[in-house]
């Protein structure tokens, strides 16, 4: 029986199939794109303290404080299959107990249509840079990298590391907490 309802049904089903095909096409047009852009990171101040870590093993642990500058042009990452970027700055370093430590210091969400020129001066880290021991003091090679998750309309959720990272040594001595 060909009724109004059966015609509406086939029309709706066909439209949905076409829409699914278009969404897949949107994914295919952007699937092989290189989403790396150069990032300029500059650390302006490093401070190291040795404080009680109440969350951890109840010992005094190393706590780092960083102030950094960040500049990058994120415009080339955005296209019609990008809804937002989740940027995060992570520190990577090796200690005696662990070959690879990764700590996220700062993050930011950039929505589509927002300002894509990243130009930040003297930003303090958002999250505590705690080591699970005393691995930060006199650590010669702590690498800061800006990475991002690309949140798409359709398809995979790529995790991209920005090209351009900075490595810095940490101070040999702790900053003593002044009592006022």
């Amino acid at each position: 029986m060909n009724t109004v309802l059966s015609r509406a049904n086939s029309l709706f089903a066909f439209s949905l199939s076409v829409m699914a095909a278009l969404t897949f096409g949107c994914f295919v047009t952007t699937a092989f794109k290189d989403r790396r852009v150069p990032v300029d990171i500059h650390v302006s101040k490093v401070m190291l303290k040795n404080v009680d870590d109440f969350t951890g093993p109840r010992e005094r642990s190393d706590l780092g404080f960083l102030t950094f500058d960040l500049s990058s042009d994120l415009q080339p990452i955005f296209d019609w299959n990008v809804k937002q970027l989740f940027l995060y700055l992570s520190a990577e370093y090796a200690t005696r107990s662990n070959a690879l430590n990764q700590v996220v210091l700062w993050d930011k969400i950039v929505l589509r249509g927002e300002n894509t020129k990243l130009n930040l001066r003297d930003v303090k880290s958002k999250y505590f840079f705690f080591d699970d021991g005393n691995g930060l003091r006199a650590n010669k090679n702590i690498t800061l990298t800006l990475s991002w998750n690309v949140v798409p309309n359709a398809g995979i959720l790529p995790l991209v590391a920005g090209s351009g990272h900075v490595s810095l040594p940490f101070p040999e001595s702790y900053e003593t907490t002044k009592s006022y």
Partner: protein
Amino acid sequence: MLSIFKSIPSHMDYKGQKLAEQIFQGIILISAVIGFVYGLIIEQFGWTVYIVLAGFVVSCVLTLPPWPMYRQNPLSWQPIIPETSAEPSQKPQEALKKKKHK
């Protein structure tokens, strides 16, 4: 309530059904191609979706109601044969059957 809807004539003839199907498929495919290209150019997938939705609405209007263009090839049914013209030899058999049934 339902009988009111059923009393509205909504059928199409067979050629009309085929034509309606071709029309809505054509409209949606064309709007999909236009929307994809436009969305790709202005880098907004939302506009692709809007253009396909517009094609959907247009084809709904064009093919859901039984417009006269879908009813131009009505089936030519055999004309109703009056009962008196039936062959007389079959009549007694039918009468027998009816009697048996009763």
